[in-house]
């Protein structure tokens, strides 16, 4: 079935819907999830659309099960995704760590709502930024992306799938309620023009296959179950053959490779958008829906003759340190507006090291930060 048969090229679309369409376009053929506002439309669209692609949609008994199922599906060769919001994201954490450790490509969409706990189920927040980074136990790298528009929900879902496949890692797409529920007119790209990345599979004969052997990329070839390359997958620290080990040298090799495959490829993984930064003395650092308000604030301040610019973070983790470093020569003030109590501004301050003055704008009352609230600190 052609991708656009039921999805015309141009249409009024919701961010959640665009994310579901992006998943289909990227080749996701397995979705497992558990309903939760404000993410449920992603599940509903895929429940409707996936089976026609010979894909599988399954509603599991909870988010722990959903995460387990997508890991299983990915091990069996499918591109797999789930979507949730705060409470469900908390439940997924243990298995997200499993996917990091066993290097299982998969995508977790978290459409953020106000927490902690049940919080405000239909209201936007950005309170899961640090949970996305550190939510699962133990040291691990993670890739987290955050869209600001409906079209970008599509694009970044595709990109999340591609990065997951390329680096054999879970990728978290951190949307927020505004972006997820907002409707915009979008033109979806021609499916043929969408870059598709597939995991590297082994080319050696099965008896030569060493499932977790290092190579220059740090990403071992991945064979799927049933393909004739019998191997062991575990969340225990393992040697290159995948078997549990407590040997210090083998443990250290694994730890280092898991980090290296991400940190060696920051240029590929990290994405920001710069707006009016060239001469900016006041730089707003923002992401997700709040970046829309930030842009408006910058446009208005520019019109009033102020030297203000916007650094929009598209990749949240690994933190785009290099991009931030570039604004320092002339930036005197950094403004970090967030719908949380300052989760990303901590990171900005860490990189800033006292060079510029960091001003924060924090709202956790369940509504988008307004441009005037940002302008008030310029």
């Amino acid at each position, binding site marked *: *079935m052609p991708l656009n048969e039921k999805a015309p090229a141009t249409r009024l679309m919701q961010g959640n819907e665009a994310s579901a369409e992006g998943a289909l376009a990227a080749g996701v*053929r*397995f979705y*497992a999830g558990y309903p939760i506002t404000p993410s449920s439309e992603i599940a509903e669209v895929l429940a*409707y*659309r*996936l*089976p*026609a692609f*010979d894909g*599988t949609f*399954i509603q*599991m*008994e*909870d988010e*722990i*099960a*959903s*995460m*387990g*199922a*997508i*890991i*299983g*599906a*990915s*091990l*069996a*060769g*499918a591109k*797999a995704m789930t979507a949730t919001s705060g409470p469900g994201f908390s439940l997924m954490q*243990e*298995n997200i760590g*499993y996917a990091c450790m066993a290097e299982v490509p998969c995508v977790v969409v978290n459409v953020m709502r106000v927490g902690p706990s049940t919080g405000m189920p239909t209201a936007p927040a950005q309170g899961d930024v640090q949970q996305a980074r550190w939510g699962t136990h133990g040291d691990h790298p993670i890739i987290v992306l955050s869209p600001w528009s409906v079209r970008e929900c599509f694009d970044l879902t595709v990109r999340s799938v591609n990065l997951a496949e390329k680096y054999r890692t879970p990728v978290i797409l951190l949307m927020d309620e505004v972006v997820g529920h907002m409707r915009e007119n979008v033109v979806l790209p021609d499916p043929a023009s969408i870059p598709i990345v597939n995991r590297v599979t082994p080319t050696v004969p099965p008896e030569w296959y060493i499932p977790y052997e290092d190579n220059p990329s740090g990403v071992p070839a991945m064979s*799927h*179950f*049933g393909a*004739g*390359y*019998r*191997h*062991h*997958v*575990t*969340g*225990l620290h393992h040697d290159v*053959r995948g*078997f*549990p080990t407590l040997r210090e040298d083998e443990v250290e090799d694994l730890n280092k490779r898991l980090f290296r495959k991400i940190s060696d490829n920051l240029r590929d993984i990290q994405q920001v958008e710069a707006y009016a930064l060239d001469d900016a003395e006041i730089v707003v650092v923002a992401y997700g829906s709040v970046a829309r308000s930030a842009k408006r604030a910058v446009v208005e301040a520019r019109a009033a003759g102020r030297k203000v610019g916007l650094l929009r973070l598209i990749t949240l983790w690994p933190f785009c340190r290099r991009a931030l470093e570039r604004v320092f020569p002339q930036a005197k003030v950094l403004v970090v507006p967030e719908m949380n109590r300052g989760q990303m501004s901590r990171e900005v301050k860490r990189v800033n090291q006292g060079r510029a003055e960091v001003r924060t704008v924090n709202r956790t009352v369940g509504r988008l930060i307004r441009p005037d609230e940002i302008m008030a600190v310029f």
Partner: protein
Amino acid sequence: MKGETQKAYDYLRHDKKFPHVWCPGCGNGIVMGSLIRAISKLELSKDEVVLVSGIGCAGRITAYVDFSTVHTTHGRALTFATGIKLANPDVKVIVVMGDGDATAIGGNHLIHAARRNVDLTAIIVNNNIYGMTGGQFSPTTPYGLKATTAPHGHVEHAFNISRLVETAGGAFVARGSIYHVNLLDQLYKKAIAKKGFAVVETMSSCPTHFNKLNLMGGPVDSMNWLKSHAVPAEKASSLAEEEVRGKFRIGVLADRDIPDYQTEYEQVRLRAREANGYVLDPKEISKLLESYQCY
């Protein structure tokens, strides 16, 4: 017998994974032998079997056998297995879990896997205790006995795992024991061959913790206990109540022919391709509601 031993050896991994972690006299080795014989008798190729396990002593089985294997997270083996089976229906997916793994932390997944009837085989190794973590009570620890977390006697009541699964759904439920090995081979074989969710509760032993805490002697005493307390299912119904009190039934407990999830989902795929989607016929609704057996 020599031939059988050799057969088991052929299915073990020979690249560096031994000795195993199990204590002398533990039932897990017998479970592994039985499972290998069942797979071998069914003439399944090593490449078409995916063995999935949870966390616990029983869960360690996956590292030792030469199939595609996944050692998952505690309690979640069935969820991983569901994803594997639905993404690649060509493989046989067999899941091994401990009693705590399957019915405490994983209890919700167990009843839903049964209700959903995904084509999986689940072996639940019931040693009535948490072995790996050192003898804490599990949902199958008998009332009044001891565990390290029930030092003053256990005051909760045990699950009847087989009955729980039978009620939840699924295609096949059986109970065996590590003493009745020939029967166990047969039950595993039947469960693996069955299309749909099939469970074999396997009464096992943990001499190291359960026996020690409960003055039950050594591995041989466990065997004697299992031998004297098992009642063949086909005989149980003709026995008087006092004859079966405190005993457990072994054999096939439920065997139903119901379409598995994958077969049902093919319908969904067909309907999704139809222009108008799935249209409910108003005349059909009351008939469909009959399947919701509410009594």
